[in-house]
């Protein structure tokens, strides 16, 4: 850290910044302070806790994969495609970011539930979504997808599509361009987007509770387990909260870790000057 260069920050700003940090850090510290360390291990390794943690990890991995499979095309189409009502679609896709999760749960219920929009069709196909682990994954995907799409679309948009244009003039068909240029270039953005989605899935509570229910081993994820344990065993709730905080900290640290190599897209656009190659002007 260079302490010699001028920062231009007034001193009072540091005061407020410390305050902002405290708003976040203090409650987390309070959890740590409340942990019953003597019983910590038995509490977090109880059958119900392990089952909830396992379910949370499994469903979060599944929903993250689903987010990647569905989110990558969506982000690319939103960033580069041209079609009517594109702006509207973008706003709609971002909605789950600002919706209260319980609203998401209700919306999912009326979509995939028995009496829902698709429920009848699914029932005929022998698929029962409600009260199943699938419902948990759906709820998590619903709330986590925007995270992936937003971070990826931003990355894709800043990168522009000049590399893709060059690749095409070098004779690469769209499939090859996607596989050998677009995908590798979006990897850093995809990685952080996926990590954020995973974190959001892990923390998902409201939509799951409303839509999927709560049953040990099937739909009771760690946040639901914490909520339930709170009723009878606050110590267990605090201990499990700490586990969730630890996982979240690890995940966020992973997402914002400076990559070992330089961010590839950045490194090369830094050198490139502002003037656009012809590829940048494709309408």
């Amino acid at each position, binding site marked *: 850290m260079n302490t010699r260069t001028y920062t231009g920050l007034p001193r009072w700003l540091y005061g407020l910044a410390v305050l902002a940090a405290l708003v976040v850090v203090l409650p987390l510290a309070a959890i740590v302070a409340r942990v019953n360390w003597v019983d910590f291990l038995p509490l977090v390794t109880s059958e119900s806790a392990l089952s909830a943690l396992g379910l949370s990890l499994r469903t979060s991995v599944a929903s993250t994969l689903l987010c990647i499979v569905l989110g990558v095309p969506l982000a690319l189409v939103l960033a580069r495609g041209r079609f009517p009502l594109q702006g509207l679609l973008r706003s709609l896709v971002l909605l789950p970011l600002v919706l209260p999760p319980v609203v998401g749960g209700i919306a999912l219920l009326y979509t995939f539930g028995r009496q829902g929009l698709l429920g009848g069709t699914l029932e005929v196909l022998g698929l029962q979504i409600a009260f199943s682990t699938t419902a948990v994954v759906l709820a998590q995907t619903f709330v986590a997808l925007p995270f992936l799409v937003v971070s990826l679309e931003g990355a894709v948009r800043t990168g522009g599509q*000049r*590399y893709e*244009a*060059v*690749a*095409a*003039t*070098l*004779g*690469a*068909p*769209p499939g*090859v*361009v996607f596989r*050998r*240029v677009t995908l*590798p*270039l979006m*990897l850093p953005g995809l990685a952080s987007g996926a990590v954020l989605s995973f974190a959001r899935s892990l923390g998902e509570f409201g939509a799951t509770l409303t839509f999927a229910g709560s049953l040990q081993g099937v739909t009771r994820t760690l946040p639901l387990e914490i909520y339930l344990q709170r009723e009878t065993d606050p110590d267990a709730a605090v201990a499990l909260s700490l586990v969730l905080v630890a996982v979240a900290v690890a995940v966020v640290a992973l997402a914002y870790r400076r990559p070992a190599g*330089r961010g*590839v*897209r950045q*490194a*090369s656009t830094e*050198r*490139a*000057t502002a*003037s*656009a*190659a*012809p*590829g940048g*002007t*494709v*309408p």
Partner: protein
Amino acid sequence: MTFSYQAALAERGFDVTMSLAAGETVAVMGPNGAGKSTLLSSIAGLLKPDGGRAELNGRTIFHLGGNSSRWTPPHRRGTALLAQEPLLFPHLTALDNVAFGPRSAGVPRKAANREAERWLAEVEALDLARRRPAELSGGQAQRVAVARALATDPALLLLDEPMAALDIHSAPLLRRLLKRVLAERQAVIVTHDVLDALMLADRVLILDGGKVVEHGPTRRVLEQPRSPFAAGLAGLNFMPGTLTKDGIRTGRGREVAGHLEEAGPRHGPGGPGVAVFPPSAVSVFLTDAHGSPRNSFPVSITDLEPHGDQIRVRAGGLAADITPAASADLGLVPGMTVHFVVKAAAVSVYEA
């Protein structure tokens, strides 16, 4: 082995016709917004014009308008594009970058790598093969980019100001390299630098406002410019008008005496013509100094700027180069009215 092109794009006021003979390189020049990038993008297939038609080596690469809507996608055109920035794929080594084209064409990895090595050697960058783009200097990266473009064996090479982003030490090296590889190769090079046009191109095409305003062999265009832009490139004063028996008459009725460059002009007096003379042939006087055969133009000074060891006096759209001492003696400042005087013998007059 030829290229013919005609396309229009109303939205940008673009309407250009051009062609290339076998092995010919054409330099495209013109002010910003003239349509140079539109031209390259539409040839490369990255931008679709409203209408027009282009053929490359007997193959139609697009035919739009009327009942036809043929459009070959960029990857099947064989028109490799080299941009101002190298745009090397940052996640691939220099070698993999160069091998990208051949591999996309279905060449097996080993053969593609051998091909890439050959082209890296050709641009004197074989020692950089294992490096990532982030580890290359601007000049090195652009050389690798040249190799990458050539490795696709393009039917037509498109260069969009390839030297513009390079520092003054890297540019000459790349220019020499391009001169070598562009010989006997069909290429279109967009450039701002008259040196590129002279060294690399057989012909030059001047675009302005989306139209071709002038074209011809590079030397002729620079010696006898027929557009203000080309005159600017050649560093000449440019006055358009109509031919008279011993010069031209400008649009504002000013008579300019000069010597006719071509014996027996096609149209004779009354046809469009231009008068051209170098700034070094212009003298500056504070009063009207008539005397045949001389031209004297009263003008108001807009700018004074250093030009080599001379002072360039800009006034009334013309330029005069005088010594600093003369400038000081005359007490020249912007806003002053002076007379630009030029001998008729120094003024070239020819048909526009």
